[in-house]
């Protein structure tokens, strides 16, 4: 494995950062502005993809920017795991930017320049988190992401969004400053380094109780991952415009949280230390709890976006669950679920948004009969649902299959039950919507309405079709991502 000095990771981060002044300066020409977003997104994706072959060959790209203290620097390092995450984020950024153009214009939202600027900043931070070489850098981008998404979450600037924004900040900032920061500095204090390495940074400085406390501080501290009881910001943040919910709260923000936990478990503690102290089980219990409770709550939600939010909470814990299995299959299944869930969930959010723009309906109970009027949207919804539930022919099946194999491999077959039960629950809260859409007759009052309901505009429909198609493609060709994980974790 070679480490190659490269400026590309920095460029990938900078592109969407540097486009912000351009966006601001072209705020009165929406078309110019939006084409810049698109260009920035494409360039980011191209830069990310250009690094792919090198990474697949088992190399790493690295760049140290600033050394803050010995062993703690602001540095980038691209490995398989980071690459996987960056590809997901960058490709979905493009899709979402198209979608958000349609959505924001469709609803004539105010402050669009502010919206796209912070959106770009958030993407920049997400890519930065993906390419972080150490915990300090990761923490930095994590915090930037938290703050950059605040104006997105509270975009409507009304009382409701203020309250949600407050909750968002309290949970996200409170946990990261209150738990992660001391834990991180303690790690640094003990070991003198924060570099991620597959062997972990601790040799034998940590006793089991200390390691447990530290691990829990990290797991709960990265509250973006939505581990209960620090999950309630996520449903609250659904007041945001749907593209924000879609990209940030189904993909970027929450996945950064999960990604951070994965990094800490595999790069800071190391699989070996965790299995020696048997800490995987602890995390698994926490994750299982979140999986089951999240799914149950999702069942009872009538507002579509909230149902999706709770579904996200439980699906995120699948990823952590998989990593906590500490077996190769489990790790593979968990991490690849980042990809599968991202595409599946973003399809679902896109559909929710498209339905809202086209019909103004937010609640599941109102959606009877819509499927006939919006066939593309509801078909895509169906595919997205399959992907999240984990049924073939969608990418979700691949990850869940590996997770189940992982439980067997790690000899934790009791936990297999959790996965199965939860998958049933997933099916229960998604499939009825599809059923309603296609097979139930719409309510009387709707028929009386003079406005004819049809598909939303193209800017909304194309992205959701694309992401739905990718969800299916991933079932047949997950190889790239699998290889990236294998390269990244040396399994």
């Amino acid at each position: 494995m070679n480490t190659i000095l490269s400026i590309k990771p920095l460029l990938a981060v900078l592109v969407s950062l540097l486009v912000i002044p351009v966006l601001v300066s072209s705020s009165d020409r929406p078309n110019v502005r939006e084409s810049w977003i698109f260009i920035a997104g494409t360039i980011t994706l191209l830069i990310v993809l250009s690094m792919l072959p090198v990474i697949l060959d088992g190399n790493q790209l690295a760049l140290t920017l600033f050394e803050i203290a010995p062993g703690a620097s602001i540095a980038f390092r691209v490995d398989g795991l980071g690459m996987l995450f960056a590809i997901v984020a960058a490709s979905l950024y493009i899709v979402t930017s198209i979608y958000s153009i349609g959505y924001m214009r469709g609803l004539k939202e105010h402050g669009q320049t502010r919206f796209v600027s912070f959106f770009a900043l958030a993407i920049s931070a997400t890519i930065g988190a993906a390419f972080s070489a150490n915990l300090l850098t990761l923490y930095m981008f994590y915090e930037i992401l938290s703050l950059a998404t605040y104006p997105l979450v509270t975009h409507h600037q009304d009382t409701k969004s203020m309250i949600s924004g407050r909750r968002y900040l309290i949970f996200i900032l409170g946990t990261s400053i209150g738990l992660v920061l001391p834990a991180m500095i303690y790690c640094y204090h003990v070991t003198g380094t924060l570099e991620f390495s597959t062997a972990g940074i601790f040799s034998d400085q940590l006793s089991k109780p200390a390691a447990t406390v530290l691990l829990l501080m990290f797991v709960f501290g990265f509250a973006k991952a939505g581990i209960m009881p620090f999950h309630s910001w996520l449903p609250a943040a659904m007041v945001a415009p749907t593209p924000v919910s879609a990209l940030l709260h189904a993909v970027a923000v929450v996945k950064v949280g999960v990604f951070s936990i994965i990094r800490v478990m595999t790069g800071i503690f190391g699989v070996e230390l965790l299995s020696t102290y048997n800490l995987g089980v602890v995390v698994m219990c926490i994750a299982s709890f979140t999986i089951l409770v999240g799914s149950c709550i999702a069942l009872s939600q009538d507002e579509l976006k909230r149902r999706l939010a709770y579904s996200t909470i439980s699906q995120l814990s699948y990823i952590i669950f998989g990593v906590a299995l500490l077996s190769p299959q489990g790790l593979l299944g968990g991490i690849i679920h980042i990809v599968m869930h991202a595409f599946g969930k973003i399809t679902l959010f896109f559909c929710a948004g498209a339905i809202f723009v086209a019909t103004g309906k937010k609640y599941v109970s109102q959606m009877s009969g819509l499927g006939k009027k919006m066939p593309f949207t509801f078909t895509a919804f169906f595919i997205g649902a399959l992907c999240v539930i984990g049924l073939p022919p969608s990418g979700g099946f691949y990850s869940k299959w590996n997770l189940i194999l992982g439980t067997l491999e790690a000899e934790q077959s009791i936990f297999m039950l959790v996965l199965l039960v939860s998958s049933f629950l997933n099916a229960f809260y998604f499939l009825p919507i599809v059923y309603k859409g296609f097979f139930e007759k719409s309510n009387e009052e709707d028929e009386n309405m003079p406005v004819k309901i049809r598909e939303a505009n193209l800017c909304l429909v194309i992205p959701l079709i694309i992401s739905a198609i990718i969800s299916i493609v991933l079932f047949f060709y997950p190889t790239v991502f699998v290889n990236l994980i294998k390269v990244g974790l040396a399994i």
Partner: protein
Amino acid sequence: MNNYPALIVIAPLLAALFAGLAVWIEDRLSYYIAILGLAVSSFSALKVLIQVIESGTIQYKMAGWDAPVGIEYRIDLLNAMVLLLISGIALFNLIASYKNVEQEISDRKGSFYTIYLLFVTGLLGVTATGDLFNLYVLIEITSLTSYAMVALSDKDRGPLASLNYIFIGVIGASFYLLGVGYLYMKTGSLNMMDVADIIASQHDSSTVLVGFILCMIGVWIKMALFPMHVWLPNAYSYSPVAFSRVVAPLMTKVMVYVMIRLMITVFGFEYIFNTLHLSEAVVWLATIAVLAGGVLALAQDNLKKILAYIIVCEIGYMVGGAWLGNQSGMTGAILHLLNDALMTFALFLGLGNMVYMLGKVKLNNLQGLFSRMPWTMTGFVVAAFSIVGVPPTCGFFSKWYLISGAFEAGAYHFAAALIISSLICAILFFKVFEICFFQSSPDLQGQGHGHKFQVMAEAPVSMLIVSNLVSFSLIVVGVFSGTIVKTIILPFLQGI
């Protein structure tokens, strides 16, 4: 002969006197004289810093007399850095202040600039000097000028706040003077290095102990360490904004510098940490200061007061860090001295812009500020995040060192206080931001569209450029804090 060390202090003094003459001849000239004086001072400070980094400590003998007999300037890495900080901030503030001064004290501009320059002279002199008594005289110059300034702005409360400030300030300075007297009693000298050499053999003397305690209490009163902080919030919030922008970031920081200087150069770590065993108590005091400052800030409804209490809280950081008794803690304290000066300056620059445009800065005056003054708020937000400690702004990195110093010393309560205060600051600033972001100001609403179409009313460009430049420097200093530590702070700490 290399006269730059003297020039750092003398240039603003000369400028002050010429500005004092200009008051009677042509009032407008005083501003340009002030700019010139501070520019020369900043340039000299930069020169000196480069020299010190390259070739080590500079000694400058005033009047040509050798050290213990005469007064010397002893400029090492620490005070070279602080000198540049002071003169730079003073210069930038002067540039930003032109309009504020025109608005607030247009009839007495010349006198204002004169006092301003004298104040800066005092700060620079305190920092540069290697003589204990000279330090006292210069502290008095800074105090006297700030008394005058505090009384100037607010007609109702200003004079009383200032008078109380005088009482407390005099007690503080007198304690310091007494402490120096006690030391003089046992050493017969006033030069810091000389005193340090002599008391090295008198560590068990009760006089030295009392002298030490008196000096520390004096300096703590002057820097407003809780519970000796009562004068600060009033004093800082009633002075004209052009002045509070320089007094708030610098005055307390210079006093922290004096404390560190006394601890390191005069008394020595050996005496403070191994002979006295006071450090635990002081770290507890600092912990309480950090928490109390934050909690008191929460109770305020005026932005100026909020910022003033945040200063009280930040002082706890530095005192605690310096007294942890390990290298990380001291590094953190020194780095935070630099960072906090910049952060506070950036915050007060934003505040100055708001005061200029709004007049009052009670919290409910700030409605809709994000749409009215987006550039000001950009700078302000960055500075606020720096106070909270969000990387990559500089506030995070000094906090980093402070917390790891606290872990090293086993002072977990101090680490906890730092983290809690970060959270409190986050709450504080988001309280402000929520008002600025969600509420629309009643008088500036557009045509029936509510907050969505508010008129932009930004501060003048000169102020905006400075405030955004300083805020940007927070990030630059943040990412280069490793370099600063490596080239300035660590060599300084290892040199002693």
